[in-house]
């Protein structure tokens, strides 16, 4: 079975493998090797027979080809209603075809499947809400990504990403030492302005265990400090784990299910080790989806629940505002028109739309909804790992038009996006289309608006 040095069906389990992939700039050699990767049709079909059960088979079989999924897909709309972007067409032409051919597909076909699965679908699951049969093509594309991964047809960045999870239990090469150092550094950095500020590591029996996205310690450590400030203001008894602090899962985007399991188990282990009452996850959509919504199933937890109750950051913020743990200075509320980006992963796929509105009612004087909104909102355009894949940058940028037009229609210049992927996509759409907007997570806005009790203020 010819396999490349970099592009192959092997998992990335060692630092050497990872480094070799990282050294291959933009995945040039990786994609070249992919052209020669042989499809293991037998294994592919065996996997399908084992895992493609009644739900997915029924979906593939009964699709009435009515086209009602067409307008639900932002790629279809952004690509001027190109019929090849109709979700049904995309899944029938890929997964449907592999099943019909009993896995007997060639390299070119698998590359087409890979391109479709990652550049024409972000697994936002919106189409599933518009199909009369409830055929969720996002779920099917997620499954298809797993098949692609098992055959070695996975975008370079995501092969690296899943390798990162396997090696570091984080989507980036942040070691335990790096993480703990960052916590200490941030606490020290901000202590002068916030006397008594701490980022407590590995405290037993805390009320809250706080977990993050590795991008935060790696590239935006101030986000961690902001979380600490808000917990400090709210008087929370909280901690972060030294290990098992990473909530994200590029492995989920890659379809590397074994790595998904490893990743979430590291977080669940931290829960068992430190025995906190509940977990709060940072402002990241897919992190919450991976670790709280899907993770328990990867880990084989029968009730489908995390070992302790888990909450997205917006749930904690809404609670803190509702209970008065954090009070907003009425004069500092957002006066300008402001809109909210409903993340697919924690709004459509986790039911938190009311919570988001509750927050806006406390902090904004002129909150304007995008249309459509809540569970029906469109993907930002960068979900499902698409933001991070160089090979599909052009397709991603075209897809951003739908979100651009939604934002423009609100007349707002400020977009609140409590999700890393949405935040990135909106930043990139501003860079691409220059529509003059600003975008923000909740944390920095809340810190500016919160009333600081006298005993927490620095001495003059």
């Amino acid at each position, binding site marked *: 079975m010819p396999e490349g040095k970099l592009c192959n069906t092997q998992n990335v389990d060692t630092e050497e493998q990872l480094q070799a992939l990282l050294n291959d700039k933009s995945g040039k050699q990786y994609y070249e090797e992919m052209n020669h990767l042989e499809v293991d049709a037998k294994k592919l079909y065996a996997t399908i027979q084992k895992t493609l*059960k009644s739900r997915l088979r029924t979906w593939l079989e*009964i699709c009435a080809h009515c086209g009602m999924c067409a307008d639900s897909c932002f790629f279809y709309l952004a690509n001027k209603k190109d019929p090849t972007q109709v979700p049904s067409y995309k899944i029938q032409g890929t997964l449907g075809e592999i099943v019909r051919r009993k896995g007997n597909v060639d390299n070119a076909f698998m590359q087409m499947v890979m391109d479709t699965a990652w550049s024409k679908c972000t697994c936002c699951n919106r189409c599933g809400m*518009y199909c009369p049969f409830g055929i969720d093509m996002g779920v099917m594309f997620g499954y298809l990504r797993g098949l692609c991964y098992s055959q070695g047809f996975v975008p370079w960045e995501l092969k690296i990403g899943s390798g990162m999870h396997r090696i570091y239990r984080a989507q980036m090469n942040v070691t335990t030492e790096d993480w703990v150092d960052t916590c200490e550094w941030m606490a020290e950095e901000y202590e002068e302005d916030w006397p008594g500020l701490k980022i407590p590591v590995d405290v037993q029996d805390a009320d809250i265990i706080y977990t993050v996205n590795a991008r935060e310690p790696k590239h935006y450590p101030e986000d961690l400090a902001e979380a600490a400030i808000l917990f400090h203001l709210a008087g929370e008894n909280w901690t972060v784990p030294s290990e098992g602090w990473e909530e994200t899962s590029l492995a989920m985007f890659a379809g590397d299910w074994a790595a998904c399991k490893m990743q979430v188990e590291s977080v669940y282990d931290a829960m068992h080790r430190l025995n906190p009452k509940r977990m709060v996850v940072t402002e990241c959509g897919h992190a919450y989806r991976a670790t709280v919504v899907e993770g328990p199933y990867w880990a084989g937890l029968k009730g489908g629940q995390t070992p302790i109750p888990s909450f997205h950051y917006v749930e904690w913020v809404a609670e803190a505002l509702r209970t008065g743990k954090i009070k907003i200075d009425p004069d500092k509320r957002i006066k300008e028109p402001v809109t909210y980006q409903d993340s697919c992963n924690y709004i459509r796929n*986790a039911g938190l739309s009311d919570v988001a509105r509750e927050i806006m009612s406390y902090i904004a004087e002129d909150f304007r909804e995008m249309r459509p909104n809540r569970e029906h909102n469109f993907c930002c355009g960068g979900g499902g790992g698409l933001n991070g894949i160089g090979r599909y940058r052009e397709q991603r940028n075209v897809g951003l038009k739908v979100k651009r037009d939604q934002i423009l229609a609100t007349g707002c210049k400020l977009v609140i996006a409590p999700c890393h992927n949405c935040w990135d996509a909106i930043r990139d759409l501003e860079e691409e289309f220059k529509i003059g907007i600003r975008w923000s997570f909740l944390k920095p806005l809340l810190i500016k608006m919160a009333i600081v009790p006298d005993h927490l203020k620095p001495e003059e």
Partner: protein
Amino acid sequence: MYAFVTGPLAWLSFTVFFVGIIARIIWYFRGLNWQMDRVAYKEHMTYGIKGAIRSIVFWLIPFGTHSWRFYPFFTICFFTFHIGLLFTPLFIYGHNVLLQERFGWSLWAMPESMATFLTFAVIIAALFIILRRNALPEVRIITKPYDYLVLAIAVAPFVTGLLANFQIGNYNFWLIAHILSGEVFLVAIPLTKLSHFIGFFLSRAQLGMDYGIKRGGMKSNGLSW
């Protein structure tokens, strides 16, 4: 001929229909897997059933979902077609006379004019569905000959029934054709994608449980379909 198609052949087709539907249901349930589907069906049955009912009921109401409201023309075609397709054979007077003769019981029978109206409605809705298939690029691209075949199977009993009823041409020929096409329809339901007759409910229930249990149903009032 009449005795054969209304006797052994009718029994055979009803048997295939009922056994096929039951087999479909069993196969579907047996193929569900909490870990692979990532839905804890059993552990959260109450949330699951609530989600399943919501997911089915909203979609059974014309304009009851965002999607039905988004495509009003198709929604009208769809409901006209399906209401006619289901109600006409069950409640048409002629069928109930047969039931009474054979088994000594019958269902409520609708007035003749209503049956004729519904039959025309099914045929006209089917024509619009075909036109739509051809007119819209996003539907045309996914349309296969198989889609026309199942549509033809579903509509054939209505066309032949109408021709027999109005005695256009040879009555006996159209009557036999009507009975045969009805039997083909019955057999085709479990064996083709017409299995959405039951698949609709199974699939909607499953996605409803998914949303009701895992994707937010336990933290919200339920998805706004």
